C-alpha cells in the first residue's frame, strides 16, 4: 500500500488551526507571551513541512524521542509523526478517520491508539509522504514495531535506531555508533552532508534548554504553582519538535521569566489553588480543554509530572556532538519509564511528591499502553507509603470512544472530594 494522493494530506489544515490558535492566544485579555511564541513556533514548524516539497527539502518522518537534532543539523525537515497525527486528531477533530484507517490495517482497538492513528494517518494520506522513515525502540516496543509498517504504507526507505535500555558507557558508545550509521544513511538518502559545526551549535543550545527546563520545573515547586494546569504538555511539544532550536530557547527563557515573576508576586495559575497534583503519564488529548476547565473550577493544578518534566543530571558537550545527542536521550524524563522499571523511577516519584508538596496523584492508565499500565500497583504503593492517594483513570490518550468527558468528570469530582475530605481532618 502506498500513499496515492498527496493532496489529501492535512498539513495545510493543521497549519490553519495553529494560526487560529496563535490568533486566539494573542487575543486573550492578558496574553501570555510564551503561549503566543509557542503557537508561533508550531505554525512555523508546519509551514516548513508544508513548503518542504516546493523548496526541494528532504523530509524525514520520525517517531517520538527520535533525536531530531541530527535532522536539524543536516537541514532536513523533520515531521514528528506522533505529534503531527495527534494534532491532526486534536485540532481537526479527525480521531475517527485516523483510527478507522488504522483498523483497516488490521489493528484491533486494544492496540496503542497513537500507533493505530499514526498508521491510519499515513494510510489515508493525512500525513504527507516523507522521504524517509526514522524510528527507534524509544520509548516502547510498539514504537519499535510501528516503523516497518510505516515503511510499507509509505513505500519509503527507513532506518531503525536501536537504543539500549541501560545507561552505561559501553551503551553510550553503542548508541553513538548507531547515530553514526544513521547519519550515513541520511547522507546517502538525502545527498546532504552532516554539518558538524551546526550540530555542535544545536547541542550547545540543547544544553541551555535542558538547564532552562530544570529551572522551570523548580519554579513549579512554588505554592501556589505558577504554571497553568496542563502546561507541561506545551513543554513536551517544544522538546519533541524544536530540540536545540534557538526559538525554543527563547520560548523557554520567556516562560521561565513569566513563572519567576508569578512566583515573586505569589500568583498562582488558578484563582484558588486547592489541590496540588502529580500527573503520571499522558491525559486524554481530546479532553485537554475540559481538564483545563475542571482544574480551574476545582483549583486543581498538575504541579509535577516526573516522567515528563524531571530531566536527568548531566551536561552536554558541544565538542562531542554525537555523544551529547546520545547522552541527552538518557537524560530525558521519559527515560525512567524506558525498559525495565528500576528504583530510579520509583524514587523520582517519591522525591517529586515531597518536593512539589502534592496532595494526590492522577495515573492516566492508557488502556492500550501495556508499558505503563503494568506499573500502576508499584506507583500506588510508593505514594501510598507517603499517604498520598492515587486516582487511576482508565482512559485512552487519543481514542475518545474509550472514556467520555462525563466519566472523567465524575471520577475527578470524586477524587477532589476525597482530597477535600482529607484536608478536613
Amino acid at each position, binding site marked *: 500500500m502506498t500513499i496515492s494522493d498527496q493532496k489529501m494530506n492535512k498539513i495545510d489544515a493543521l497549519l490553519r488551526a495553529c494560526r487560529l490558535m496563535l490568533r486566539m492566544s494573542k487575543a486573550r485579555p492578558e496574553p501570555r507571551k510564551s503561549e503566543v511564541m509557542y503557537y508561533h513556533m508550531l505554525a512555523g514548524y508546519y509551514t516548513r513541512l508544508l513548503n518542504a516539497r516546493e523548496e526541494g527539502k528532504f523530509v524525514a518522518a520520525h517517531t517520538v524521542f527520535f533525536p531530531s537534532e541530527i535532522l536539524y543539523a543536516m537541514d532536513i525537515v523533520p515531521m514528528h509523526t506522533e505529534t503531527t497525527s495527534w494534532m491532526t486528531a486534536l485540532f481537526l477533530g479527525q480521531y475517527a478517520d485516523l483510527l478507522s484507517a488504522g483498523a483497516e490495517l488490521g489493528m484491533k482497538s486494544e492496540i496503542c491508539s497513537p500507533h493505530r492513528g499514526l498508521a491510519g494517518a499515513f494510510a489515508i494520506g493525512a500525513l504527507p509522504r516523507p522521504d524517509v522513515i526514522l524510528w527507534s525502540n524509544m520509548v516502547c516496543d510498539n514504537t519499535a514495531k510501528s516503523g516497518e509498517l510505516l515503511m510499507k504504507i509509505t513505500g519509503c526507505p527507513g532506518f531503525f535506531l536501536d537504543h539500549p535500555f541501560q545507561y552505561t558507557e559501553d551503551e553510550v558508545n553503542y548508541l553513538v555508533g548507531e547515530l553514526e550509521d544513521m547519519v550515513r544513511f541520511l547522507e546517502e538518502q538525502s545527498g546532504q552532508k552532516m554539518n558538524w559545526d551546526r550540530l555542535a551549535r544545536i547541542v550547545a543550545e540543547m544544553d541551555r534548554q535542558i538547564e532552562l527546563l530544570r529551572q522551570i520545573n523548580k519554579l513549579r515547586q512554588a505554592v501556589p504553582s505558577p504554571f497553568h494546569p496542563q502546561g507541561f504538555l506545551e513543554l513536551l511539544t517544544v522538546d519533541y519538535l524544536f530540540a536545540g532550536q534557538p526559538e525554543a530557547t527563547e520560548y523557554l527563557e520567556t516562560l521561565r521569566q513569566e513563572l519567576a515573576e508569578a512566583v515573586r508576586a505569589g500568583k498562582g495559575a488558578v484563582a484558588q489553588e486547592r489541590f496540588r497534583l502529580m500527573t503520571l503519564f499522558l491525559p486524554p488529548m481530546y479532553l485537554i480543554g475540559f481538564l483545563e476547565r475542571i482544574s480551574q473550577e476545582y483549583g486543581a493544578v498538575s504541579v509535577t509530572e516526573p516522567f515528563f518534566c524531571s530531566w536527568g543530571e548531566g551536561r552536554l558537550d558541544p565538542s562531542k556532538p554525537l555523544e551529547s545527542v546520545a547522552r541527552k536521550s538518557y537524560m530525558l524524563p521519559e527515560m525512567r519509564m524506558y525498559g525495565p522499571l528500576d528504583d530510579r523511577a520509583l524514587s523520582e516519584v517519591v522525591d517529586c511528591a515531597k518536593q512539589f508538596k502534592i496532595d494526590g496523584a492522577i495515573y492516566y492508565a492508557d488502556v492500550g499502553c501495556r508499558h505503563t499500565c503494568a506499573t*500502576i500497583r508499584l506507583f500506588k504503593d510508593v505514594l501510598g507509603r507517603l499517604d498520598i*492517594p*492515587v486516582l*487511576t483513570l482508565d482512559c485512552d490518550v487519543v481514542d475518545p470512544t474509550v472514556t467520555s468527558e462525563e*466519566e472523567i468528570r*465524575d471520577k475527578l*469530582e*470524586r477524587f477532589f*472530594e*476525597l482530597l477535600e*475530605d*482529607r484536608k478536613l*481532618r
Partner: protein
Amino acid sequence: MIAVDQNKVKALGIDIGSLTTKAVVLDDGKVLASAVILSADMAELSARSAAEKALSQAGLNFDGNLHVVTTGAGGKSVPFSQQHKAITTCLARGIYYLFPTVRMAIDMGAESMTVIKINERGRLSDWGNQDKCAAGTGVFLQQIAKIMQMPLEQMAKLSLTGRPRADISNTCAVFAESEVISHIHRLPPTPKEEIIAGIYLSMVHRVMALCKRIGIEKDIAATGGVALNSGLVGVLEEELGFKVLVPDAPQTVAALGAAILAKEGMDKGVK
C-alpha cells in the same frame, strides 16, 4: 413512633439510584427512619418521594427544617438539597457508622459495582469501580433471573447446592447471557443450580479483581441491593476466605452516609 422535636433541623440523606431511591433521616446522629422507593424518571421527583416517605415514617413533614445531602445519579439536579456528595464519600461515611472496623466495602447496585477503601477515621482512601459493563450488577442478575425463570430469592437458595459451578467465562453482560442460554439448551442441559452458581462465581471474580486492584483489607462489608443476595455473598466469602459483613439494609448505606454528611454540614454551618 419516636417522639421527635419538629422544630429541630434534621439531616436527610438521599441516594438516587438508577433503579431505587433511598432516603435516611438522622436526628442527633441517630437514624430516625429510612425509605426505599422505585426511582422515577426525574431525579427531583424520586428524591422528593423517598424523602417524604422516610420523613412521614419519622412523623415529620417535608416542609420542615431539613438539611439535605444528595448522592447518586442525578443527585446534582435536586433543587432542595444543600449539597451533593459523591457516592464513594457517602458509602465510606455510611458503612463506617454501621461497622467501624470495616476497611473495605463492596457496593453492588443496580447498574454499578464500586469497591471503596476506608481509613481508620472512616474516611474514603481509595476506590475502584466497574463502569464499562453491566455484568456483576443488579440489573444483570435480574436479567439472568428472567432467563432462569425464577425469582432472585430462589436463585440465591439454589446456588448453594450448585456443584460443580458452570463455567461462565464472558466478561460482557450480553455475552454472558448467551452463555447461560447455551447451558440451558445443551444436551443434557446444565443443571440450573450449577448455572446460577457459575453466574455468581463470574460476578465475584469481577468483584475480586476490583478489590485486588485497590488492595484487599479486612474487615469487608457488602452494600447495595445485590448484597441482599445470600447466595452471591456466600460465594464472595468463599473466594475471600473470610466472613463479609452485611448491614440489615445494605441498599440504604449511601443514603445513610449522605445523611451523616448532612449532619456534618449542619454542624459546620453549611447553608
